[in-house]
Structures are given as structure tokens and as C-alpha cells.
């Protein structure tokens, strides 16, 4: 299982805003797919996954503030569940 999380990309980044989900729970995703778009203090960023599988549930809704380091969803491998 791969956790897709909001990375701490600045020296003092506390959180980011989840702008938009690009994939829905249950979608088949491939490594490199954009899962969500987030906005930090400085820029918007695509969050991609590194593995292929089935997307898990959305743990945040659009416009939620997400603390840096927090997982927003997971990519499930064959036979895995949340």
C-alpha cells in the first residue's frame, strides 16, 4: 500500500489546501498519475502516486487544510484493503 501524502516542501511549511481530487475512490491508477492538486503558500502542486493499483478513500475534501506530512489517500495493491 502506498500512502499519498502532502509533502513538506518549504522550510517552514505547516499545511496546504487540497484544491481538487483528480481520481476517485475505486479508480484504477497508474504510477505517475496525478491524484490531487494542492496549493501551498507559494505554488500549486500535482500530487502523483509512485505505484499502480486501486485508489482508496479520500481522507480530505476540497478546500480542506491538510497538515504537511499527512496522508490524503492510499493506492491499494491487489488484495489489499484500507
Amino acid at each position, binding site marked *: 500500500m502506498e500512502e499519498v*501524502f502532502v*509533502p*513538506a*516542501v*518549504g*522550510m*517552514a*511549511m505547516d499545511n496546504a489546501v487540497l484544491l481538487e481530487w483528480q481520481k476517485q475512490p475505486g479508480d484504477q491508477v497508474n504510477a505517475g498519475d496525478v491524484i490531487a492538486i494542492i496549493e501551498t503558500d507559494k*505554488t500549486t*502542486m500535482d500530487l502523483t502516486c509512485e505505484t499502480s493499483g486501486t485508489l482508496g478513500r479520500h481522507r480530505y475534501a476540497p478546500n480542506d487544510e491538510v*497538515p*504537511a*506530512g499527512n496522508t490524503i489517500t492510499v493506492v491499494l495493491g491487489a488484495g489489499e484493503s484500507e
Partner: protein
Amino acid sequence: MSNDKEWKRKLLRDMVVIRTFEETADKLTLRGKVAGGMHNSSGQEAVAVGTMSALDPKDVIATTHRSHHHTLAKGMDPKLVMAELFAKATGCSKGRGASMHLADVDNGNFGGNGIVGAGVGIAMGAAMGIKQLGHKKVSVGFVGDGGMNTGRTWEAINMAVVNKLPFICLVDNNQYAVETFIDRVTGGRDIAKRGAGFGLPSFTIDGQDVLKVNRYVKEARDRALAGEGPTLINALTYRYYGHNVGEKGQYRTQEEIADWRDNRDPIDRFSAQLISEGLLSQDEYVALHAEVTAQINAAVEFAEQSPYPDLSTIYEDVDSGLLGAKS
């Protein structure tokens, strides 16, 4: 011969420790565990290990904002480095410094800092002290390619030359000053030629070859101890990650990064050499990685479990104690 075998295997191990540490710390930084971010040195291991393996433990170094590889190669326990990255009280700088201020003065590591080129001045000052006190040791100032275009760097080199100081300027040249390719901002393009103009032996070498770095530093050290003054070594290397962790890098191509990783990686090259020379078996190499991974995982565990500095200690270490800064 068996000494040579053990020595070479230690060089390899030291490089694997750095790579494993950096890959691990990079992920932890993205997860928000590392206070103030970090600069990943993956790809530059041979410069650090090649240099330190040519030094005596009592020799002095001063480094840069990208200093994990220098610090680990100088012999600091990964636990103390990781705890410092986490800003914990058990870190080498008691959690005050984080990634850019790793230091161990008692063991000749005068520390990193966030000011481009400043390590050269600090190390030159240490070399001045070494000469004054008549000690038999040398001082090495690390600097990046970006730092070779700052005034203080050349001011320090000039002072080292005219005073014949036991000093080595080691350019850890990863070719990018943050996002700027060195050739775009370096007049004359040739750092070693600039050094020659300042009157000190100056060399550009392959910084991905750990034995070559070792040999050039050893010769520079011998000259310094013989009273012949400083040397400049411009070691060409490459960083695989961004300037800082999480950087959205669009200033170099994936092909360029892959070329350095796939064809010039210092660890791949040296491990292949040791295996072909019969100094290491494939199984031993796999075991080495497993051993180092366990060591770095233990360092993470140590950092996680350690406490943050207590608020009551906030006035400690602000000065030498003579000025009376107390709570």
C-alpha cells in the same frame, strides 16, 4: 594487501552509509519530520569519503549548507546527525542547529553553515591558528561551485596563499548553484585556472572516483605539512536530488540526471571495481547494504525517541559563558 582490502571496503561502506542516510532523511523531510528542511547530498559521496580518508582524524574541516556527507565521512555517528535533523536534544548540536549546522569541534568538524562560501573562510582561519600554534595538521574548507563566485572565498584563498597556510580548498562542485548551471555564471568557466592565477596548485578532478579524490587530497595534505602552502581541488560531481528536499526542479533534464546516476555513480563504480578485483563478493555487498540499512533505521528510531531540548536550556550555549547570558 589485506589492509588495502579492508581500507577499500571501508571507503565503500562509508559511501553506502551516506547514500542510505540521505535517501532515508529525504523521505522523512517530505513527511515533515525534519526541522527546517535539508539539502540532499546523494551522488556526492566520493568527494566526502575520498577527502576524509586522506585526512588524519585531528585535521579540521568546515563545510557548507550541504554537509551531511562531509559530517558522516568525518566520522560522526549517524544517530547524532539524524537527531540533529529532527532538532532533538541528543543531536550533535543539541538540537539548536538542524541540518545546516552539524558540528563536532572536538573531532575537527568546525561545522556547516548557511552562508555560501563561508566554510572556506572558517577553515582558512583554522589553518592560520594551526600554523601559529605549530600543530602538524591541515584544514579543509568545503565550498560549492556557487561559492566560487563569491568574493569572500577568494579573499580567504589569497590569505592562505600569501601566508603559506596548511589549507585545502575543496570544491564540491555539483555544477548547480541552486537552479543555475555553473557555466552560465562562471567567467572563464575554469575554476582550477582561477586558482592558478591566485598562485596555488589547482586541479580539476573526477569527483565520482573516490580513490582519485583520496590521492589528490593526500598529496595536498603532504604539501601543506611540508610547509608548501595551500591547494585547490575542484572535484566534479553531481547531486541526484534538488537543491533542497521538495524542490520542484525544472532546470535540468531527467536524461541528464539518469546519465550521471546510471553511468558515473560513485558507489556503483567502486563496488563494481572491488568485486572485479576480488576484494568483495556479491553476497558481501548485499549484506553490507542490509547492515547499513539497519544502522540508519536505528538512527531514525533514536531520533524519534529522543526529547526536544527543554525550554529551560534556551539561554545555554548562547555565548562562551563569559558574558553571563543566563535565564
